[in-house]
């Protein structure tokens, strides 16, 4: 039993494949965040679009640890793309929660899969944390974007937005999970991938 639960090469490669798709979508959408209006909307768009590869990924998850590794890799990539160390922390927390949730459904339950993706999506909140923990410092670092940008972002992101964004990540994660499931049924099962 123990050896069956150990991660093998194929599982790790699967994490890489779906992680790559997830990250490309994330990165393409994150570029929109340069426009101030889209900055809070990232917590809506990323979880919804990311749901498609992630639900496909969950069909391959049969052993403990895979979701957590996926989350940690996202954290490391965020560090390498200049989002600072905060996402590492939120990734660890969200990864463990998602892992436990999917595990309680014995890696099979469809409802738990959607819930698990909702929990996983909460790591995105880590990207906003530098803004809320050091409100003044964040804008001082971005002074070269111009006062108009800073004014616009400050108007869109008052401090009370923090919990709103966290909830948005979770709720949109659920929506993304449902969307992912719908597409899974419509396309991927037919193609023999799920």
């Amino acid at each position, binding site marked *: 039993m123990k050896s069956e639960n150990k991660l093998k090469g194929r599982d*790790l490669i*699967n994490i890489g494949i779906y*992680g790559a798709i997830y990250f*490309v979508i994330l990165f393409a959408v994150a570029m929109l965040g340069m426009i101030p209006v889209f900055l809070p909307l990232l917590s809506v768009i990323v979880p919804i679009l990311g749901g498609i590869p992630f639900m496909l990924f969950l069909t391959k998850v049969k052993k403990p640890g895979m979701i957590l590794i996926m989350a940690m890799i996202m954290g490391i990539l965020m560090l390498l793309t200049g989002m600072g160390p905060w996402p590492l922390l939120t990734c660890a927390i969200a990864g463990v929660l998602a892992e436990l949730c999917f595990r309680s459904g014995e890696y099979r339950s469809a409802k738990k899969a959607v819930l698990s993706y909702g929990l996983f999506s909460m790591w995105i909140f880590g990207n906003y944390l530098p803004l809320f923990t050091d409100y003044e410092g964040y804008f001082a670092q971005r002074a070269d974007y111009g006062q108009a940008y800073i004014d616009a972002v400050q108007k869109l992101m008052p401090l009370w937005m923090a919990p709103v964004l966290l909830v948005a990540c979770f709720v949109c994660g659920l929506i993304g999970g449902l969307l992912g499931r719908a597409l899974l049924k419509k396309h991927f099962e037919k193609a023999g991938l799920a």
Partner: protein
Amino acid sequence: MTYSSERSREERRGFLDPRTKLALVLILALFVMGGLGGDQLKPIKTVLSALPFLLLLIERQWGRFARGAAMLAAGYGLLFLMPFLPGVLNYIALLCGGVLTRFVVTVVMGEYLIATTSVSEFISAMERLHMPQAITIPMSVMFRLFPTIGAEWRSIRRAMAMRGISFGGAKATQVLEYQLVPMMTSTVRIGEELSASALTRGLGGPMRRTNICRIGFRAQDCILFAGCLFVIAVWIMELCGVKLW
């Protein structure tokens, strides 16, 4: 007298060790793109920004160098033009310029890392850093797949544009379904073939894998590492309130 295979290995060896490249990406991401540090680090950041371009020239990556330089020039050009533009254009120019000058350097460094490091070199470097396989295998698969996904994405977009399914031509949901889904399907298929090939070559097996890549620190690596440490030291001193210049 060396064997010819040994000589060719030495010739193919990259200018830098993969670990040095990773350290440089991290430093650039934190300081140039992340905007860490205050006024004292400004001159250092200028030097750091030139570094990836220099490295691309050393590795003779002319195309990438030209593209990166053009984007950086466009960024500074916008910042330069900005005061002369009216109203909204002024604001857009400032934002685009700020984003370009800040991001291009780190993106170029990342491109350099991906373009000049083979998967074996990457794995071998990670092994020497004692990273667990659970992190290195997915990461190396990802680095291998990024260019593939880009190529697939472009051809699917072309095919769908021919049928009028592109941004501007069709609804967002249609774009999503007919562009994203095929992209994922083909990436997963390519990934599965990759996985079969990697497993055949013993990736993730219980035995320790050997590797013919020659990596290791040479003079240029030591210099760049010293540079990285210097940047961190200056940053810490600045946090402690020491005035350097």
